[in-house]
């Protein structure tokens, strides 16, 4: 009674050993107060692929994701030991500037969260903030970002419209476009489709496959089928630890760990 998963075409041909490391966790631990949420995480996320993190609720996958752009820092009781390297730079070094870091890493949240502004202003927010462009250049960036998120054709005639006029799926693609506007190298996606209908989900999954050409995509999902569909590498987490991490086809077709197998076959979730 085992489930079969559709592994995507690129993943079938993927070989971890031949890819470059983009984000590397070394002995990384995280506490919220006394709660030891991430335990001795060692993992290498490769560049220009989609890496999925899956696991039951509370396993720490979202926390791990947010450690990459240090969004956990916002919570006062957060404490970490160990290192996280992006391109061999330790982002948890004391003199690292968290604001520059966040310009390199874009984030898309579970529930679409556009600003209460026009579509144009939403995308322009990042470049205006960091003063990277203005005037015509800004128009160009907005267009490119919207194209990159496969949203341009749908909204090009109503850029001045309020973002809340869009459907849920469109709003999420808007948030993706907004993340693209600051020209990041890494895109983090925290269960981006959980608030969306199946058709919108399909569009965003297709988008992920396009995005990996130019960016490194890290995905957190509670949907096993999604992980199998879109990622080249998958990590399975349980209670704050990475139990298994490898090429998606290996993890799904030949899991090495009993826990992983139980999770994949649906014995718990």
């Amino acid at each position, binding site marked *: 009674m085992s489930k079969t998963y559709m592994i995507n075409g690129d993943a079938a041909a993927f070989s971890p050993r031949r890819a470059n490391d983009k984000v590397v966790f070394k002995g990384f631990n995280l506490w919220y107060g006394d709660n030891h949420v991430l335990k001795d995480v060692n993992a290498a996320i490769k560049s220009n692929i989609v890496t999925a993190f899956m696991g039951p609720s509370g396993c720490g996958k979202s926390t791990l994701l947010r450690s990459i752009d240090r*969004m956990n820092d916002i919570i006062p009781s957060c404490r970490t030991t160990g290192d996280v390297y992006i391109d061999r730079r330790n982002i948890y070094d004391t003199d690292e500037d968290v604001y520059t870091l*966040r310009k390199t890493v874009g*984030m898309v*949240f579970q529930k679409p*969260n556009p600003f*209460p502004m026009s579509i144009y202003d939403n995308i322009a927010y*990042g470049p205006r*903030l960091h003063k990277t462009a203005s005037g015509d250049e800004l128009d160009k960036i907005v267009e490119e970002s919207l194209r990159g998120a496969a949203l341009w054709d749908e909204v090009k005639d109503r850029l001045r419209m309020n973002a809340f006029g869009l459907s849920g799926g469109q709003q999420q693609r808007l948030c993706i476009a907004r993340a693209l506007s*600051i020209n990041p190298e890494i895109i983090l996606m925290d269960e981006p489709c959980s608030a969306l209908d199946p058709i919108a989900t399909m569009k965003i999954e297709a988008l992920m496959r396009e995005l990996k050409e130019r960016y490194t995509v890290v995905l957190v999902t509670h949907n096993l089928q999604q992980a199998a569909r879109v990622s080249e590498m998958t990590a399975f987490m349980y209670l704050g630890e990475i139990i298994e991490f490898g090429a998606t086809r290996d993890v799904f077709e030949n899991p090495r760990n009993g826990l992983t197998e139980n999770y994949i076959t649906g014995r718990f979730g």
Partner: protein
Amino acid sequence: MNEVQKEKLVRALLYAAVALSIVMLPIIVVWVTANGVGAISLEFLTGRPYRFEYGGIYPQIVGSLYLVSLCTLLGGPLGIASAIYLAEYAPDNVVTRTVRFFTETLAGMPSIVIGLFGLQFLVYYLKLKTSLLAGAVSLSFLMLPWTIRASEEAIKVVPREYREASLAMGATKWQTILRVVLPAAVPGIVTGVLLGMGKAIGETAVVWLTAGSGLEAFVPRTLRSPTGSLPMYIYLLATQGHTAEGLQNAFGASLVLLVMFMAMSVSALLIRNHYLRKLGP
């Protein structure tokens, strides 16, 4: 009488209570309008008071407007800044709780006490004399806690998701506040400030002690000149006038004051209702 009948009776009584609560508003509006309309004329609105009970109220209208504008200029930004601090930056410690406690205390202060303080501190100690400046500053003491409360509410209501999205793009806390939180909170803040202005324009006790006798026949020339105001004018004519014309003028001034007050309050509520729909899905 069974429970269902009791319920109906109770509902009827509650309706009656509510009706009583708000009935005075239309009564006063109608009463002031009916009695005051007769006094309104171009001469009344542009003339100056003379011999106490006669003449027009132009200096009083201008005086009230000056007082309220100046007081808002002083108290508005300060109140908003305080609210930003309390809503976004203040840690949960003794110092913060003390600041909040004092803000609440100031909010509950009787206006006559504020007037007394204004008299003592501004008029005498700082030698500002009974003046537009002293009156406006005293009014701003009164306005400050209202502005803080309304602005803090408006800022707190802005959803957390906006802040997260901004921070995730590399913005600092202050950039997030300036570019996302405040713009979203502006309608609520404007509503609060307008409501405060409405209250300030009708404020008598404070201006009585600090701004001028009320029956000034001239528009204040400088910040240090004493200034008339509509509330003082109304009070003096209502309590010490003995002619029919004086009474009529008091009604006229009341109507003008009421109109100005309603304009500010109603526009405040309209703004809030309009933007309440825009904020978020």
